[in-house]
């Protein structure tokens, strides 16, 4: 492999260092025995992590975020399964512009989505802000991701398997559960995981649409203003980073395995 090590390899290594370097400071300073994020390091401690458990506000924000993320992941995946089936299995006139419309949340700045939802919720519908309004906003931004993952997966396997099932006498409903759904499984799981992460980490929409209760990123943001809260913030941030990294790796591994094998026997 020596002859492959050249300027481009050096660049790639530097690029990864640049990409991950700043974020690595969070876990580094979170185990540092000091109240500021400064060098030199003072020694190893886990006390910032230990004190997290006594923080009631943080724990309730964590519970809120987890609940919202689960509802969002399940709802957006369910909506996306149905829509992806319609787009990939039926030759529908107007499907392309509809898909384009559904992908719009990817290119609209989230502050515009937030204020637009805020306006219609408060001024036009008169619904009070709550964790439910946050949930609704998160479903909106997760749907394009779920849809693209599931469309890719459903285009990846042979529709003749479904036709065979129909020809052999299964109802459409039974065909879906016994053939389509198991084949789409890697896509479904990765859509669930990605939906969970997006909702769990999302800040701007939650910041605008939440009522009195906060989600974890909103709580985190409120803590960033206070220098004395820094060590706890670092510990919480590190845990969030580790948790979402693990989920992303899991989602990607499952999705890739799904894409590579089109043989239903492998799943």
């Amino acid at each position, binding site marked *: 492999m020596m002859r492959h090590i050249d300027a*481009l*390899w050096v*660049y*790639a290594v530097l690029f*990864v260092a640049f990409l991950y370097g*700043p*974020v690595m400071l*969070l876990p580094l*300073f979170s185990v540092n025995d000091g109240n*500021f*994020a400064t*060098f*030199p390091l003072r020694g190893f401690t886990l006390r910032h992590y230990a004190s997290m458990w006594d923080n009631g506000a943080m724990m309730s924000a964590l519970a809120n975020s987890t609940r919202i993320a689960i509802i969002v992941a399940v709802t957006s995946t369910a909506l996306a399964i*149905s*829509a992806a089936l*319609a787009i990939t*299995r*039926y030759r*529908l*006139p107007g499907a392309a512009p*509809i898909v384009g*419309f*559904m992908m*719009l949340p990817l*290119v*609209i*700045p*989230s*502050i*515009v*989505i937030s*204020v*637009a*939802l805020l*306006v*219609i919720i408060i*001024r036009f519908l008169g619904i009070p802000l709550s964790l439910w309004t946050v949930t*609704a*906003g998160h479903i*909106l931004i997760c*749907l394009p991701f779920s849809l693209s993952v599931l469309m890719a997966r459903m285009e990846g396997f042979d*529709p003749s398997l479904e036709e065979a099932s*129909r020809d052999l006498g299964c109802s*459409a409903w039974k*065909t879906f559960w016994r053939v389509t759904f198991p084949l789409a499984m890697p896509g479904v799981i990765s859509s669930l995981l990605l939906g969970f*992460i997006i909702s769990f*980490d999302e*800040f*701007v929409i939650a910041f605008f649409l939440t009522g009195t209760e906060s989600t974890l*990123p909103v709580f*985190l*943001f409120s803590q*960033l203003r206070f220098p004395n809260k820094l060590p706890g913030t670092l510990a919480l941030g590190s845990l*969030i*980073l580790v948790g*979402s990294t693990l989920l*992303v*790796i899991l989602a*990607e*591994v499952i999705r890739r395995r799904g894409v590579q094998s089109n043989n239903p026997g492998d799943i």
Partner: protein
Amino acid sequence: MSYKTTAKAGPRRDLAILRKRLAGYGLLSPALILMITMLALPIMALVTLSFWTQNGFELDRSFTLANYWKMIKPSADPTVWFGIPFYLDYPVPAILMIKSLTMSLVATIAVITLAYPMAYFLAFRVTRNKAAWIILMTIPFWTSYLLRVFSWKIMLGFNGAINSGLIYVGLIDAPLEFLLYNPTAVTITLAHAWVAFAVLPIYVSLEKIDRSLLEAASDLGDSRWRRFRRITLPLSMPGTLAASLLVFIPTVGDYVTPELVGGTGGTMIGSLVQKMFMSLNNAPMGAAISITMMAVITLLVLIFLTLVGYWRMRARRA
């Protein structure tokens, strides 16, 4: 729900196609209705609100262009910003808009410059563990944006990692104050936060290039640089353009980065929108600013795409 149309002659076949389409639209409708009620209607509500006005605590629902007029109303004495005179009565939105566009543009150019070699590396050099490399590029995009931006605050802060590190090793005596809370800090942070997002689209377009074209170029005597300029670069343009738009469009309206690392000097248009809706209690003005921002971004993207199309036509004729 039927997965298969049986080809039968005449009206029965038409009926079967119609039923199949209805079933398809039925499956599509839950997601579509959600998108209409939660995206199209709210945007329309935002547009409607932008034509109303706020008088103290009262919302005046009569149609007016006052909010838009306020942004472009001329004034005799200019507000000078970076040497540019703005002959406007209320120049804040215009200045912040130009500032945000400039910062996003610089960040986007930096992102593409940084991401392109990495994507090239992934497409042409990595032979083993390719999936692992790609996942390595994907992780930062999915993990908390808030935390990635916050990590720059820790790096660049007055009491931050760079300052304390440099003092510790003895290179400086006092903290450098110019690191944080300025447009440069915001631009660097934006570039870092979005760079991973640009690698994948560029990588995909590089990966699609037919390797035999490259071999042919080499066989016919092109140097490596000439081969890159004449084949690799033009063929990877679609992915590169997509990546630059995917970075540029959302960063113009970013709120988190200027809020955390921008201070008073590094504010962007998103911060103004947030202020209008929250502390300044002028939602109609905030709505008008948001709509203007979207319109300006859309217009710029369209101009950009038209220019790209024009260049392509010219290149093809040459």
